């Protein structure tokens, strides 16, 4: 799902870093500052779980596959800012050690997958949890994936608009190519995963940052 290095020019990647950097600082200070001795292991675990979840590939009709993101769960369990920091770490590890995504696009990928999606999911969950907690969890994860994917497609479309020579694939191709699998497959699967995982974690009474 995430954008690889070389697909976006510094015109986009540098402003994305400028937006992400203070949010990283804020997230780390707010959630991992004073009690970091206790919270760091939990963050490390959450990050690793999200990383492993992202390696679980879901077959998509047409011979390709898509993957779960797993950060909506973090946003619902803790806070969207925790999800943002954890997803940024996942993206950093993927970029440095596994050649996925990249260092120049880290800011934009983190904003799209770690912040916009989880914030949208968290808001949906807060709005609908009073009617049905399970339904709200499913919907939150589904919406989170759609928002993240749409953000990625929009950024790629913006890059094409800025320079066709730089990114030759127009928005009319990028948007359906990213959104169709997301709407029909990834979102549903992410929703089901979040639903199952959330009820299991609640049953297991796994405590998080304030443990």
């Amino acid at each position: 799902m995430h954008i690889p290095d070389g697909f976006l020019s510094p015109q986009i990647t540098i402003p994305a870093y400028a937006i992400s950097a203070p949010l990283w600082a804020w997230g780390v200070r707010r959630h991992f500052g004073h009690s970091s001795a206790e919270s760091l292991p939990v963050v490390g675990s959450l990050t690793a779980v999200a990383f492993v979840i992202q390696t679980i590939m879901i077959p998509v009709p047409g011979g390709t596959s898509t993957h779960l993101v797993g950060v909506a769960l973090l946003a619902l369990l803790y806070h969207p800012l925790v999800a943002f920091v954890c997803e940024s770490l996942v993206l950093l590890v993927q970029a440095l050690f596994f050649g996925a995504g990249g260092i120049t696009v880290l800011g934009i990928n983190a904003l799209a997958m770690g912040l916009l999606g989880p914030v949208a999911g968290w808001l949906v969950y807060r709005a609908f949890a009073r009617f049905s907690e399970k339904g709200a969890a499913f919907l939150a994860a589904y919406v989170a994936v759609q928002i993240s994917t749409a953000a990625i497609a929009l950024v790629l479309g913006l890059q094409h608009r800025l320079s066709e020579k730089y990114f030759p694939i127009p928005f009319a191709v990028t948007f359906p190519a990213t959104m169709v699998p997301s709407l029909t497959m990834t979102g549903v699967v992410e929703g089901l995963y979040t639903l199952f995982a959330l009820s299991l974690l609640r049953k297991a009474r796994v405590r998080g940052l304030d443990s």
Partner: protein
Amino acid sequence: MDWTAERRDRALLGGWLTGAFAISAITDPRVLAAVGLVLMVTFRRGLAAVLRRVLRSVVPVTVGLSLVSWAWLLLVSGRRPEVQPFLALGLRTCLIAFSTFAVLARVQLFPALAPWPTLTRLLVITLAQIHALRLLATESRLGLRSRLLHEPRALDVVRGAGGITGALFTLSTRNARDVSDAMRSRGF
């Protein structure tokens, strides 16, 4: 690791980061090819291993994506799209990946990050957990496959993933606390 080596590693990391952004601004395939040659000469030690890593992890995705998009544009517009932007796109991605793998093979990442102990601890914990969880996930996947008569479908995978998350998380948190306590006792 001595002070000079740490400084050299930090300078190399800084240079790589600046270089990655600089490469991401180039659109001319000839310039990118020239930069590629310079990089290959500069990082000639261990060249084959780094190239193999790029070929395995980056090239299939980038080339596949470019080819499919190019063919789609050809189909939709009825005329051949320019090859140059697609070539530049692939080259940029490969060059940045090459420089990343080549630099990381030359620096001792954790000593270079010593001035930021929180980041070091977080990275160590995360990497340790990723290693442990990947082994567990592989075992779980094999377990899931062995319990089913057919190849696991999407719903089976999701049920399995949801089911193992609780166990993975609990185990992972316990392990992470051990690693973190061990690091704290060593001054991190």
